[in-house]
């Protein structure tokens, strides 16, 4: 059984935002409202002369115990056997409970107006037909074709790595198993499948 996961190395993310652009083009997100499936936060850490910029990419963590799924009243949010959490836009009524439940701020609104604007912005290739609470899908349509998610493929610093946790030879599974890559806020019980390699320890 495949269980997809992503490892993000905060040491090698240079904050170029190419992942955001690649994701937006691939998944046709409402960028005109600054809404993204993945976002890179830019933060200054430290004080005085001892300051460094940290770029922190964030996306849906495709939790094993996703609170967005358990609060969804219509069943629009569902989980595939491979661990990917998806949204059925035909079922989604857009109550936003998923956005309230998600600790990783991974949900974005797509309104009727966004659908209209999307038709003009992305042209004939625009796939969306109705509003919903959108989210990252790990580019499952690309995975079906044997490709990597758009953000992973485009990352210039190889900060994003994608793999299968159930494959012991996969580098992603090995980094997770060794504890080099760790999940965000595991105490919440969401059991996320996006892991981070910390940069602060290396910086001392």
């Amino acid at each position, binding site marked *: 059984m495949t269980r997809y996961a992503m490892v993000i190395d*905060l040491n090698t993310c240079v904050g170029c935002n190419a992942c955001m652009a690649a994701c937006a083009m691939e998944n046709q997100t409402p960028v005109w409202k600054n809404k993204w499936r993945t976002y890179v*936060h830019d*933060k200054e*850490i430290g004080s005085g002369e001892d300051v460094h910029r*940290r770029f*922190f990419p*964030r996306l849906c963590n495709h939790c094993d115990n996703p*609170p967005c799924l*358990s*609060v*969804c*009243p*219509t*069943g*629009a949010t569902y989980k595939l056997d491979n661990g990917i959490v998806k949204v059925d836009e*035909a*079922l*989604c*009524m*857009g*109550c*936003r*409970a998923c*956005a*309230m*439940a*998600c*600790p*990783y*701020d991974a949900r974005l*609104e*797509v*309104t*009727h107006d966004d659908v209209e604007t999307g038709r003009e912005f992305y042209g004939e290739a625009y796939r969306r037909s*109705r*509003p*919903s*609470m959108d989210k990252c899908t790990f580019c499952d349509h690309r995975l079906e074709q044997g490709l990597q998610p758009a953000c992973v493929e485009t990352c210039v610093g190889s900060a994003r790595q994608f793999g299968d946790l159930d494959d012991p030879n996969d580098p992603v599974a090995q980094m997770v198993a060794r504890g080099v890559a*760790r999940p*965000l*806020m595991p105490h*919440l*019980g*969401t059991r996320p499948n996006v892991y*981070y390699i*910390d940069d*602060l320890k290396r910086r001392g």
Partner: protein
Amino acid sequence: MDVTMSYTTQTVWTWWIAVYLYLGGLGAATLVVTFLTDMYLKNHRALVLWGAFSGIAMLSIGSLMLFIHLLDPLAVLHVINPLVLFRQPHSWIAWGTQFIIWMMWWGLFYALPYLVQSERARRVPLLGAVLRLKVMTRLSNRCCLRFHKTIGWLATINGIGVAVYTGLLLQSFPAVALWHNPGVPLLFTVSAFSTALAYLLLLLNLVIKNEEDYYIKVFYERTDTMLIAGELVILFSFFHYMAAGNESAFRSAQLLWQDMGWLIGFIGLGLIVPFLLELKGVIKGWASRLPIVTASVLVLAGGYLLRHYFMYAGVYAHPW
């Protein structure tokens, strides 16, 4: 990574959800108290009609608040269908929607015999024509009257479900410590019944105005006094839970307990002042209706403020 946490409140569910939670709890508890009073304290047509229809109106307005803010209102059909509970048994909104819908139906059926007998209702142009239909008389006599207590209890169970649901909904969001704890459903349920009693006291004092209802009013005042006292105890324990421990909870405590609207508006005017007014009424009585009417208005305002501040004071902790 944890050392670089940032903390933020949300702008997704704001005042309109506070209105939804407030009117949902108030409307449902109003129906419950009304029906229990009618079943076990005193048969009271006026109270049932006023309580049932204002309760249903509150539930409708509250639900409308959520409905008009949906991204795709047509898709609400998926959650109105009772079968949704088999597909999403873990979603409190799914349960809450069903509780609200069935609460309104049972409320309507419970009040129908009183409505059919009401001369005033039969004179209302469209409503009167409907009530004079034979099918309505049959429905009223053969079903509603025959199973009146069963319907009353079905309404009561659904009403309690709605009141508890308003708290469980917030409890199901694990990222916010203020919401994700078992005290919230308890607090919201107590508050829902306290505001319902306050609303019914307003009805009895200002609208129905029947001297024979004196002992009902005294019973409501006594119960409300205990509920407000319970609410203060729950809030006291909330304060201690938030003041030490989780950073998200601590930041929520800072937001709440440094805000005059919360401190003076909700705790002072919405709880302590009506508690003292009602306590004096219970112990020594009041010469006029004004203090209890004032206390009721304050309790109703406080009930909204509680939910309003709860929505705005929920703090998310983000590790970026």
